């Protein structure tokens, strides 16, 4: 009980208070910076945890000969090749500032094997995955958006204005408008909507999120919110 709930809660409270108080008290500012450094290192080490889980899941899928286990093998092969190439900095020249140190060069330099993987596999494929969403977002919007009430009409009209205003079609469509009505040209209207109404909505959302984060943070630091420990439990 103590090791599983009390100690973690005490660690969270102390770490959180150090971070919050070091922001205001200059003499312990270094504590906040040190805690942030520790946080960054743990976050980097957590990638190893992720990799371990990936290995575990895929190896068990292969050993059980699950449906599609061949793809698990592909995932493992891609993972291990990238890992070895990147960790060992294979094919990376040292930095011209420090040629005596074998690993001083950046593994992400273009032309290196790791750079090759980034340039020809990771970068194009992630971009293509996101590009694919254009079709699904448009298709989902076509099926879901219905101008049933004022709010829905506003959403639809704004989406069209912004979409058209950011293409050449929008410029061509409203190019005929006289100079005194130039604010109604789609490209200008789109910018105005984003700068005024979009800013107002986004600011309100950000203020709401900030208040929510502050309240949740305070509840964690005061030990009132213990849901993150698992098994429920909020005072």
């Amino acid at each position, binding site marked *: 009980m103590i090791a599983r709930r009390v100690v973690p809660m005490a660690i969270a409270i102390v770490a959180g208070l150090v971070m919050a108080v070091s922001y205001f008290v200059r003499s312990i500012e270094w504590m906040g910076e040190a805690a942030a450094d520790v946080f960054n290192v743990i976050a980097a080490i957590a990638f190893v945890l992720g990799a371990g889980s990936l290995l575990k899941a895929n190896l068990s899928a292969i050993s059980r000969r699950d449906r599609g286990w061949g793809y698990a093998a592909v995932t493992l092969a891609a993972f291990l090749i990238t890992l070895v190439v990147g960790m060992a900095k294979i094919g990376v020249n040292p930095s011209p500032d420090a040629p005596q140190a074998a690993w001083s060069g950046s593994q992400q330099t273009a032309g290196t094997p790791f750079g090759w993987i980034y340039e020809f596999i990771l970068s194009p494929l992630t971009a293509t995955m996101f590009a694919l969403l254009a079709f699904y977002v448009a298709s989902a919007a076509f099926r879901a958006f219905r101008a049933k009430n004022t709010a829905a009409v506003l959403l*639809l009209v704004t989406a069209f204005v912004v979409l058209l205003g950011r293409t050449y079609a929008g410029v061509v469509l409203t190019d005929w408008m006289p100079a005194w009505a130039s604010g109604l040209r789609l490209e200008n209207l789109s910018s105005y909507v984003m700068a*005024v109404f979009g800013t107002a909505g986004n*600011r309100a959302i950000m203020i709401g999120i900030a208040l929510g984060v502050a309240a949740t943070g305070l509840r964690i630091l005061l030990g009132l919110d213990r849901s993150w420990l698992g098994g429920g439990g909020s005072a």
Partner: protein
Amino acid sequence: MTRQRLTWLVLVVLFAGLLAWRGFTGHGLGRVYVERGEVSLARERAPADAPAASVPRWRSVPVEQAEVRWTTWSKVPPKAHFEAEARDPGQDRVVLSWPRTIGLWVAAFLTLAIFSFLYADNPAYRFTEAVVVGVSAAYWMVVGFWDVVVPKLLATLMPETVQAMVQPTLKIPQFSPWWPETWDTASDAFDPWLQQWGAMALALLLGLMLMWRLLPRGGWIAGWPLAFIVGVTAGRRMVTQVESDLMEQAASTMQSVVPTAQGLSAWDWAWAALPGVLVLVGVVCCLCYFLFSVQHRGVVGGAARVGVWYLMITFGAAFGFTVMGRIALLADRVEFLFDDWLWIIDPNHLRG
């Protein structure tokens, strides 16, 4: 043969035909050229008064004087190769890069494999998906190791090794955690070193505890570093978000109501103030809508209704903006296929 298989067959045959046609017309298709360069370095002569253990500085020198040298290959547009060949046939300075050309073709085929999902799920898509998962997991692990673990954790706990292998300019501290007799507590450098060393030792300990989750027993030990992460995130976000997302946003909202430009007529002043007023009204009305501890009736109800309209406009704009972003990415991928790979279009005049 099912209709789906027939469709795939037709698509593949059409594409193979297009490739064959492009391969035998004009400049052909899909090649990457590189230009050779040389890096040749020699140590700078150290000044007479420099300490014996100081790190040597390196400078570029002609090849024949080099102590260290290697060849670099930088990507150039195909036009550079065509011009170099026209000047000096058979030259070996600007040449075809097989690894990068193979990479280009791999990227093109994997891109098409992902787009093939638009028609139906298929083995090519699933293969590519598996590759992306494996590569991206390892990629971020490698980046985390070389960009965070080495310069922060290892440079603090194993400075000699990091200095010899990775970062020769790293200063080796005069203190050793294992030899208290080296601890010169009067030194200005002692406290920062001790703080940094303590922090990184703690990071290593918590990192190892986090790994415990992978073991079959004692998973609760990983809860301690997790608690540290939760606490640091809560403490840091609580302060920074209140400052940047609450106070600064509220201040900007109020400040923008009064135009700063001087010498405006009353009409121009009102016109300049209008966007700021609309933003202020919008923020207040949206916040009224977010206020759930008061019933949305009367003035609050009216303001909340206006807030909903503002939010709908915001969501519509965000939707349009997102779709445009995705379409820009799509255009970029299509340009990659038709320009870089198939050499059908040449918007940047890279081939002549």
